[in-house]
């Protein structure tokens, strides 16, 4: 290789290093509605309910009843939602004491009566169901903990579909507890009312990413 070739090689390498433009971020406009719209608590009209866990409240404390393998399912669900975020917007951990927990998960049917809570029915599969009770206070300005999640096995313990149902329902219900208050209209999303996929889709990820960067309308109130 003569000297001219060598210098052209060096120049080419430097051009490759220096010449490209900066990193370009993806557009995050592919998402579904996550906010809840309810009749206004005061006066007429509508209240828009939106919430994400503030950084000061992290990690979210999750207590899970030790039944039908739910602790392992929620451990996995926490990891999956955590992995959706790029900038540590969300963290959660399982706690051993339900007193002081932000999210309480029961492996049995939900109580019939509701006091103030709004109940999100979902995961209506034949093997199991899930429900999440959210308390927005009297004037729709608060997000009161604990959030209560009820996972109900419907199939026999040895039913092959039960394990899969419990796993994806855990991810789905935790999705409600961390801020996605509505169901996706797309069957390919984990937040679809009757989910068939077992992981958050690109649309689920885009939605939760954006919602954690939009100012919430609800204020966290811990007991």
């Amino acid at each position: 290789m003569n000297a001219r070739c060598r210098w052209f090689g060096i120049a080419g390498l430097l051009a490759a290093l220096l010449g490209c433009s900066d990193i370009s971020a993806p557009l995050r406009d592919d998402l579904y509605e996550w906010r809840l719209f309810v009749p206004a608590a005061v006066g007429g009209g509508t209240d828009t309910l939106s919430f994400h866990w503030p950084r000061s409240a992290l990690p979210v404390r999750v207590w899970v009843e030790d039944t039908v393998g739910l602790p392992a399912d929620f451990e996995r669900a926490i990891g999956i939602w955590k992995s959706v975020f790029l900038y540590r917007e969300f963290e959660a951990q399982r706690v051993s004491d339900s007193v002081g927990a932000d999210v309480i998960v029961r492996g049995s049917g939900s109580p019939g009566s509701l006091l103030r809570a709004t109940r999100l029915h979902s995961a209506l599969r034949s093997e199991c169901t899930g429900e999440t009770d959210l308390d927005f206070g009297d004037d729709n300005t608060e997000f009161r903990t604990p959030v209560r999640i009820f996972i109900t096995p419907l199939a026999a313990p040895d039913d092959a579909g039960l394990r899969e149902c419990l796993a994806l329902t855990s991810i789905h219900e935790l999705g409600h507890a961390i801020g996605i208050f509505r169901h996706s209209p797309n069957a390919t999303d984990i937040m679809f009312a009757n989910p068939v996929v077992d992981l958050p889709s690109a649309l689920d990820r885009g939605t939760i990413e954006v919602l954690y960067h939009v100012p919430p309308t609800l204020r966290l109130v811990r007991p």
Partner: protein
Amino acid sequence: MRKPFALLMLLLPAGAASLTAQTDYYLRIGAIGASNLLRDGIVSEITVRQSIAPLLVVGGSLPLRQGYRAGLEGNLSSGGFHSTESGVETDLGTLRTASLQLDLSGPIARQIRWWMGLGGLFYLPKDDEGIFLQGGTTRLLAGIGTDWRMAVLPRWDLMTSLRYDFHRFTTEELKARGFGQSQGISRFSLSIGLARGHR
């Protein structure tokens, strides 16, 4: 990543056996700072940056001709990195970087030499999460700098080095998320230490 350093530490003394009079070794400590790793936009702008981190540099060189020397230089730094959104900083954990560069140096003045290197930079995050969810990354690295040396003992010099290097940054996770191109990153370091060898 430990392997290249182990190799460096083994090779330099081995070379010294035959080239004792000509081989130069140095060890320096200092600090390194870098420009933004990433600029993102989710509703508002988010930047990710490494904090200024402590730096350990080890290297050695052999003479070529007319005062020029060729060598190998490795450095290791470990510090935090954080995101900033609307003026609020969030700690994203610990990020270690290690580099290994083949280098060429030559005289500028009696105690000052220029330095240029080309090699690899390894990002070694403590936790595989966030932008490093799929692990660290290896990037091509090019650097320039100057070394200033002052004799303090018969065979030992005090060595101060100023370095600038450049690489382009991205990760497998960022690519999977749809980030295009890569981010040009400039790093500056200042380090001081001892060198043993040539005069």
